[in-house]
């Protein structure tokens, strides 16, 4: 009786453990790469963006490998984001090669900018909308360009873009998303979950470049809004919203320094990004795992987590309130960046596509790659490479 009972109990436990393993606790698969692989992957992404630049200053927006087609669509915010990522690569790596391409894309943004009073903002040439996000990312890109080159020719342009951002800020630190040319004022009814963080980052960069000009006051106001109110105002079901732009902004503020409330917010963001990477690393096409955990996240999402983690790592590296999460942040960065390396289309794999030139260096999801897949993966990878290399040294 004793042995039979014991055997039955242990068998039940074993079955339970196997079920748990097969469903809720599959293995974390974190490829083991170092800074060289991260950088090589980032370079392949840069090459994709450079090849995708067209004669009109726009990038290839999207490519569907299943139909070998290019949907007729474009997005000015993403244009600014992709351009920013090229400047970011240059600023982080010291390789200024991509600046030539980025400057062509920048010129297009300047050409379509809308002037009003003492500010300038990017206007969508098709629907005439003036949106906060594109100008914020253009300004962030210009700040990174200045870091990379030391060239001050766009300083006044940056200030004019910056003044538009201030025009869109509300007294509580939040931002409105559209400025309406027909009313000559911001649309008071529309906010954006993306644009607030983008504007925050741009303002924080501006203060670090031009410390005496007062850009820190609106930056701190939006940092507090993000830390205390945004998730509730925007009604996010599972706060905090994984906002890598907010993480970028907090990282820029690391020497100001940030307040306790902002440090708490930074920690909660780190927890969210870390969890997302852990879950992503458990995704596979194994039986039951894909059904329960879903398929791989597209690079435009996955890359933002690595961006967020790298920003928070830089913050934690100098802020002792976050010292306890430094090591975990490093682990998640390496894991997230490693998965990106693994999922990128290599030159060999690209040869199997109808158009290898638009496949190589890209990340596909359901046979589709969009320019911001390359943008966010590039940003995350180059920052992961710099952090990993610095640690090695």
């Amino acid at each position: 009786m004793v042995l039979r009972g014991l055997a039955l109990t242990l068998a039940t436990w074993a079955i339970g453990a196997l079920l748990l393993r097969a469903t809720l606790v599959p293995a974390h698969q974190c490829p083991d790469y170092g800074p060289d692989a991260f950088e090589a992957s980032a370079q392949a992404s840069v090459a994709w963006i450079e090849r995708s630049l067209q004669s009109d200053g726009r990038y290839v927006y999207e490519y569907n490998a299943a139909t070998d087609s290019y949907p007729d669509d474009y997005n000015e915010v993403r244009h600014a984001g992709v351009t920013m990522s090229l400047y970011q690569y240059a600023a982080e790596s010291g390789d200024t090669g991509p600046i030539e391409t980025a400057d062509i894309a920048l010129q297009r943004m300047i050409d379509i900018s809308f002037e009003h009073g003492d500010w300038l903002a990017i206007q969508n040439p098709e629907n005439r909308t003036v949106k906060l996000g594109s100008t914020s990312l253009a300004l962030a890109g210009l700040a990174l360009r200045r870091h990379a080159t030391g060239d001050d020719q766009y300083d006044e342009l940056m200030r004019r873009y910056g003044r538009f951002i201030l025009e869109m800020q509300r007294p509580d630190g939040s931002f409105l998303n559209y400025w309406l040319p027909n009313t000559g004022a911001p649309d008071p009814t529309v906010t954006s979950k993306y644009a607030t963080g983008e504007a925050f980052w741009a303002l924080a960069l501006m203060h670090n470049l031009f410390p005496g000009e007062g850009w820190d006051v609106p930056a701190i106001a939006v940092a507090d809004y993000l830390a205390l109110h945004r998730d509730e105002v925007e009604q996010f079901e599972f706060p905090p919203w994984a906002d890598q732009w907010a993480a970028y902004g907090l990282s820029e503020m690391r020497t100001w320094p940030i307040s306790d409330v902002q440090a708490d917010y930074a920690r909660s963001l780190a927890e969210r990004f870390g969890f997302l990477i852990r879950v992503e690393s458990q995704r596979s096409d194994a039986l039951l795992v894909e059904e329960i955990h879903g398929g791989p996240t597209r690079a435009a999402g996955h890359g933002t987590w690595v961006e967020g983690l790298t920003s928070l790592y830089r913050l934690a590296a100098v802020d002792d309130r976050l010292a306890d999460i430094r090591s975990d942040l490093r682990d998640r960065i390496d894991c997230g960046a490693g998965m990106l390396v693994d999922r990128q289309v290599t030159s060999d794999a690209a040869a199997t596509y109808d158009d290898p030139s638009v496949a190589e260096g890209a990340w596909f999801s359901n046979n589709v790659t969009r320019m911001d897949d390359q943008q966010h993966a590039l940003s995350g990878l180059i920052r992961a490479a710099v952090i990993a290399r610095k640690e090695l040294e």
Partner: protein
Amino acid sequence: MTDPWQLFLVMLVAANPATGLRAVLPGSLRERVPAAAVAAGLAITIVVVAGLVADSLLEGLAIEEETARIAAGLVLGISGGQAVVLGGPLVRDTPRGWQAGLYPLGIPLVLNAAILAAVIAFSANPDAGTGRSIGFAAISVTLTALAALVPARFAGPADGVARLVGAAAILVATAMVVSGVRDV
């Protein structure tokens, strides 16, 4: 969930000593002591081994410590739910002598799946500490084994206690899952 009192609470509700009160062992107290001793010895041995190999085990299975905590929370939640519904196992018709200390007293009563999962998950957590996790788990299983020595007339009242501890286990399990999700 790595403060000492929190960790002890986890181990205590996972072991749920009130279930020991529900074990009706045959014979006099003198006859029941060997069974309880074997059960405690077996449970403590497994807890110690599990705690010591936790790091290697999770590494071998490619499971992050935070994920192990979530899994342990799920196991504890199921165990707590079972205690709430059934009031903890009422063990009867057990063999006389020390053999009962192997089954059913040792496994699964004193050493249940929830305490085993908890000791693995927390021993791998550097903030909780291997020694502390093993220590609290060992104390908790010992309490369960000692409870089995209490006369059978207390088995009835113990039912309510086991259910209450089961309810507490569900709350603790929820906190474990949340903390696992919220960790970096």
